[in-house]
């Protein structure tokens, strides 16, 4: 049985590390980095990544018609994994770039960490939130299989997602405040952290994704 994964390429950033991580964890998958809507719609699984500024990403997403495409893929029931800015783009809007309308596939806002973020001892926290932090699992999910709750993943971001429906939160991380670091809704899963850069825990998550049927 074929298992094809399309990584949506809308010209923002390097997608090779996601591709090589997927190929590394599952030799049977066929990974394609593509901007071809046909290839994306025919794939068994979709990865929707993103780096850089939300406004630039949204601009390219709209130009290539990826907003409708990703919505159709999600509606079709196939497993979809959003990563980093790819997760943020799924929300209604972001505070970045003076306010940016996003894809609105998940109700909620993407907010800035703020200038005066403090840790529990009162020290000022740096923004971007960069490095390895714990993800507490809020729900049981096939993508969390064989990963301990509280396991560390690699983050680099200055904005975080705030789903209107808090039952969608799949993982929580603390950085001056508790924020949603992963969301799950039916066949859609999205992470603020980078599984492809998160060593064994990240590779486990990607391996789980390669076998996930979307339920």
């Amino acid at each position: 049985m074929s298992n094809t994964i399309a990584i949506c390429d809308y010209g923002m950033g390097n997608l090779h590390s996601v591709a090589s991580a997927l190929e590394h964890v599952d030799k049977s998958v066929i990974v394609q980095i593509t901007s071809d809507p046909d290839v994306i719609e025919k794939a068994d699984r979709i990865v929707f990544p993103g780096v850089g500024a939300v406004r630039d990403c949204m601009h390219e997403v709209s130009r290539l018609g990826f907003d409708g495409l990703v919505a159709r893929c999600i509606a079709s029931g196939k497993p979809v994994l959003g990563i980093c800015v790819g997760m943020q783009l799924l929300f209604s809007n972001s505070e970045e770039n003076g306010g940016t309308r996003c894809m609105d596939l998940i109700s909620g806002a993407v907010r800035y960490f703020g200038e005066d973020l403090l840790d529990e001892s009162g020290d000022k926290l740096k923004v971007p939130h960069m490095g390895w932090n714990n993800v507490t699992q809020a729900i049981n999910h096939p993508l969390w299989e064989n990963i301990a709750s509280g396991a560390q993943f690699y983050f680099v971001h200055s904005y975080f997602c705030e789903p209107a429906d808090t039952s969608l939160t799949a993982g929580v991380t603390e950085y001056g405040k508790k924020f949603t670091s992963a969301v799950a809704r039916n066949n859609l899963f999205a992470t603020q952290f980078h599984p492809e850069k998160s060593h064994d825990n990240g590779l486990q998550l990607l391996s789980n994704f390669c076998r996930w049927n979307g339920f």
Partner: protein
Amino acid sequence: MALAKRIIPCLDVDNGRVVKGVKFVDIRDAGDPVEVAKRYNREGADEITFLDITASHEGRDTTYATVEKIAAEVFIPLTVGGGVRTVVDIRNLLNCGADKVGINSAAVQNPDFVKEAADRFGSQCIVVAIDAKRVDDIDGRPRWEIFTHGGRKPTGIDALEWSERMVANGAGEILLTSMDRDGTKNGFDLELTRNMSERVSVPLIASGGVGNLQHLADGVTEGKADAVLAASIFHFGEYTIEEAKRFMANQGINMRI
């Protein structure tokens, strides 16, 4: 449950070979950067920095090929620096699998290059490397200045002011090297590190002078660095990354273990 402090081993690579001598017992080809990177990855490095010191222009292709090989096998963040002068250099490195790119002299020659790079590729992948040397004022107040060309050429630029300017231009992270301490094994310039880390809003990586594990811990606790970088103490097999992390964790520093 909080953001962990990072240990970043640095590979100095010349024409596709790790220099400064590496003596890992279980690595057949000790000079192969891919093998060294894999070893650090296994030991629990939080990121890897690859510093290309290849002088020749032709050597760039070797660098790209090496970065590509590391990125295909090591699934932690990879920063590549050395000789980055144009947006084409950055694009090539990112396409080979680098997650972040270090800009050093080119930023001094043209500060707007950092802005251009951050606008094009996003701040998250732009690390500005700052080489600073202590040059106290006449009245004895501490002051540090930016030096280029491996610490030989003074620029007259105040290092702390420069760090702020680089962040304003879009640097997502600062890699600070004390040229006074680099290679001495006497520890970081903690005063410089603390001053700069408290001044900038982005994470700061301390570098230059690590001779033992206490130096790494001091960089975080006294220098307020978000990450510590070292080369020789790991290269020569004096300590493993794992030992370093346990040592720091035992001093109450939050590490990924």
